[in-house]
C-alpha cells in the first residue's frame, strides 16, 4: 500500500463521484459512473484485495454500466438537476 498512489486515486474517485451527480445528462452520468467504478477497482487492487477488485471490474464497470445505458436509452436523457 503506497500512500501517494492511494491519495491520488482517492482524489480521482471523489472528483468522479461529484461529477457523476452534478452533470446534466444522464448518459454522461452513466459513463462517469463507469469511470468511478474503475477507479474504485484500482483502489481496491492497490489495497491488496484482488478478488473484490476483479468483481468490481467485471460487474460495476462492465455490466452495470451497460444496464444503466440500456435503461437511459429506453427512458430519457434529460434531467433538471
Amino acid at each position, binding site marked *: 500500500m503506497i500512500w501517494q498512489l492511494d491519495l491520488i486515486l482517492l482524489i480521482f474517485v471523489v472528483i468522479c463521484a461529484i461529477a457523476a451527480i452534478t452533470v446534466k445528462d444522464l448518459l454522461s452520468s452513466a459513463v462517469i459512473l463507469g469511470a468511478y467504478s474503475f477507479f474504485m477497482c484500482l483502489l481496491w487492487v492497490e489495497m491488496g484485495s*484482488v478478488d473484490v477488485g476483479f468483481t468490481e471490474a467485471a460487474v460495476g464497470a462492465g455490466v452495470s454500466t451497460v444496464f444503466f445505458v440500456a435503461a437511459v436509452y429506453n*427512458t430519457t436523457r434529460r434531467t433538471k438537476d
Partner: protein
Amino acid sequence: MEFIISKYNYWIYITLMMVGFYAMIGKRNLVKKLVGMNIFQTALILYFISTAAKKGATIPIVAHGHGEAVHAVHATQYVNPLPHVLMLTAIVVMVSTFGVALALIMMIYRRYKTLEEDEILKATK
C-alpha cells in the same frame, strides 16, 4: 491538524459517503438518486476493505498451496481476507438492487412519462 492528516483516508471515505447521501436525498431525478445509492454502497465497501489492509503484507493467496511440502502460513504476511469475502457478497447485492431499481424506474417512466420526483408527485395528486 495532525489528527486529520494522519487519518486522511477515513475523511475521504466519509466525504464520498456524504456525496452519495446528498444525491440520495437532495436530487430530484430518480436516476440521480440511484447513482447516489451506488456511490454510497461503494464508499461503504471501500471503508470495509481498508480495514483489511496492512503495511508490508501481500495479497491473500497462498502460492504453491498444494503439491509441494506444506509450509507454515504467517498471518502477518497476508492481508486479512475476511472483509474481502463479506464485501464480495455486498457487491453481488449491489448489482442486483441496481438492476431491480432500473426496471422500476422504467415502469415509472412508462406510466408518468417523466423521471422528476416533483412532477410525479404533482401527477399523482
